[in-house]
C-alpha cells in the first residue's frame, strides 16, 4: 500500500469555535493507481492532503505514506512524496527552468543531474518553448504544468495534486488529465482531490467520496455506481405536484427510492425501460402528467446524493 491511514483527525480553532475539519479518515491507496478524493468545498479534502504531505500535524490517528510513518518520520515522508498545492507555487520573476533546477537541488540532487532532470521535465510537460521566460508571463494551464513538474522533479513514489484542474479552461484540463495518466503509466501513484464529478469518473482508478470531514463511500467509480444499481429516471414537473407524484411512485414495487430535485422527481429503479410505462400509468391515474422524462445510468452525483442526501452540484 502506498498510503494507509487509520482514524486520521484534525480540528481547527476559529473565532466561532472548533471546526472538526477531518474526523476519522481511513484510507488505503494502492501502488500505481490514480486515487481521487471527491467532495464539495469544505469537505476536508485539502486538510487530509496537507496532513499526508506533512504540512500540518494530525490531531489523532495513524498514517503510513510511501512506507514511512507520518508522525515519527515526517522527514522521510517528505523525501518520498511530491505535493502540488491548489494555488500555485512559483516566484513571478523566475523562469520555469530556474524553478525546476532549484527544486531538484532542494532534494539534495547535484547541479548537473538537476539540469538534466529539468530538461527532461520541460520536454515531458511541453514547457521547453518558454522555459526561460519569467513565470508571471505564463498562462494558467502552463503555470499548472510547471507546478506539477516541480512536484515530480525528484521522482517521488507518490504525488499529491490538490485540485489540479480547478480554474483551467477545457483544453488545459484535458491536457492535465493526459499528464496525470502519463505519470501513472510511468509508475507514479497519484492522489488527487477534485470537486468535479466527470474528473473523478474519467480520470480516477479509485475514489473516496468525502463529506463533512468523513469518507462516505469508497471504491472504483464503476463499483460505486453499481452499488446504486439499476437505473435513474428523472421526471420533470412543476414544483407543486412533486410531493404528490412521489407519494404515488413510492408505493410502486419497482421504486427503490425517490428524491425531489429541481423541477421534478428523481427515481431510482431496478430496470428503467420496463418500469417507465407503469410509472406513466400510475401518474396518469393520479392525474399527473410529467413535462419530461429521462432515463440514465447512475452517475457519481447519484452516488453522492444516495450517501449524503444532497447533490454535489448544489453544494
Amino acid at each position, binding site marked *: 500500500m502506498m498510503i494507509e491511514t487509520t482514524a486520521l483527525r484534525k480540528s481547527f480553532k476559529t473565532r466561532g469555535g472548533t471546526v472538526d475539519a477531518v474526523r476519522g479518515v481511513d484510507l488505503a491507496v494502492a501502488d500505481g493507481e490514480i486515487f481521487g478524493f471527491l467532495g464539495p468545498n469544505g469537505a476536508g479534502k485539502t486538510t487530509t492532503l496537507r496532513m499526508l*504531505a*506533512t*504540512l*500540518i500535524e494530525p490531531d489523532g490517528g495513524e498514517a503510513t505514506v510511501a512506507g514511512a510513518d507520518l508522525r515519527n518520520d515526517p*522527514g522521510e515522508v*517528505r*523525501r518520498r*512524496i*511530491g*505535493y502540488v*498545492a491548489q*494555488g*500555485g*507555487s*512559483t*516566484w*513571478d*520573476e*523566475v523562469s520555469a527552468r530556474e524553478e525546476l533546477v*532549484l*527544486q531538484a*537541488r*532542494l*532534494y*539534495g540532487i547535484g547541479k548537473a543531474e538537476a539540469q538534466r532532470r529539468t530538461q527532461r521535465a520541460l520536454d515531458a510537460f511541453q514547457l521547453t518553448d518558454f522555459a526561460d521566460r519569467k513565470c508571471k508571463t505564463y498562462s494558467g494551464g502552463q503555470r499548472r504544468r510547471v507546478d506539477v513538474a*516541480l512536484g515530480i522533479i*525528484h521522482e517521488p513514489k507518490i504525488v499529491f495534486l490538490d485540485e489540479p484542474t480547478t480554474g483551467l479552461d477545457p483544453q488545459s484540463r484535458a491536457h492535465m488529465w493526459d499528464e496525470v495518466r502519463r505519470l501513472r503509466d510511468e509508475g507514479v501513484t497519484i492522489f488527487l482531490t477534485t470537486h468535479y464529478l466527470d474528473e473523478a469518473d474519467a480520470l480516477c482508478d479509485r475514489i473516496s467520496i468525502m463529506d463533512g470531514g468523513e469518507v462516505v463511500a469508497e471504491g472504483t467509480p464503476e463499483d460505486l455506481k453499481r452499488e446504486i444499481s439499476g437505473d435513474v429516471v428523472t421526471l420533470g414537473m412543476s414544483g407543486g405536484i412533486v410531493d404528490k407524484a412521489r407519494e404515488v411512485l413510492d408505493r410502486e414495487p419497482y421504486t427503490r427510492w425517490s428524491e425531489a430535485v429541481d423541477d421534478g422527481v428523481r427515481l431510482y429503479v431496478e430496470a428503467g425501460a420496463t418500469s417507465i410505462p407503469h410509472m406513466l400509468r400510475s401518474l396518469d391515474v393520479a392525474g399527473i402528467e410529467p413535462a419530461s422524462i429521462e432515463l440514465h445510468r447512475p452517475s457519481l452525483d447519484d452516488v453522492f446524493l444516495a450517501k449524503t442526501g444532497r447533490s454535489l452540484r448544489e453544494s
Partner: protein
Amino acid sequence: MKLARDTWLLFQRQFSLVLRNPVWIVVGIIQPLYYLFLFGPLLKKALQAQSNGELSSSDAYRFFVPGVLVQLAIFATFFVGFALISELRAGVIERTRVTPVSRLAMLLGRSLRDVVTLLFQCALITVLSIPLGLTGRLGDILLAFALLALIALMLSSLSYAVALKLRSEDALAPLLNTVGVPILLLSGILLPLTYAPHWLQNTAKFNPFSWAVDGARALFNGNPGDPNVWKSLVILSVLTLLSVVWAARSFAKSVR
C-alpha cells in the same frame, strides 16, 4: 553541511530576486544617501552649536555615521516580513516546506540576503563619509559592521516570524510601526541620550539598540576597549540567537 548547502541554495535564489528588481537596487542605494546628505549637515551644525564649537567635523561624523548605520540596520530589516507574506501567497513557502530542506535554512537563506544587502548599504555610507571628515581604524569599523550584521539578522528573523504569524500586510504594518518608533526614539541615534531626563535614560537601558548605538560609536571613535562594545556584542548575540530559534520554529510549524 546540509544546512550550509540548503542555506546557500535559498540565499542564491533570494539574492537573485533582489538583483532582478532594478527598483530595489536604486532605492537601496539612494536611501542611505538621503541620511548622509540631507540630514548629516544639519546634525553636524546642531552638535557643534551644543558643544560651543569645540566639536570638529570629524567628531560630528564619528557620532553621526554609526547612529545612521544602526538606524538603517533597524529600518532596512524590520519590514522584510512583507516580502514573505507575498511569498506565502504565491505558494513558494508551502512548496519549500514539503521538501526535506532544513527549516533553519528557509530562514537563514532570507535573513542572510538581508544582512548582505544591509552591509553593502552601510559600506556605501561609510566610504562616502570619509571625504566629509569621517576617520577610523579599519579593524574597529569591521567590528562595528559585525554589530550591524547581528542587528540585521535579529530583526529580519523577528520580522519573518511575525509575518508567518500574522499572514497579512494589513496587520503587519501597524504592528511593526508601533514597535519600531519607540525603539528608534529610545536608541539615542539622532541625539545622545545624555540630554534625556533620568526616567527616559533608564527606560533606554532596556533597549538593546541603545547599547548597539553606544557600542558602534565607541568603535568609530577608536575605543574598542570601551565596555559598551563587548556589552553590545553580547546582548545582541543572545537576542539574535533567540530570534533565529523562534523564527526557524515558525518556519517549521507555520499552519495553513
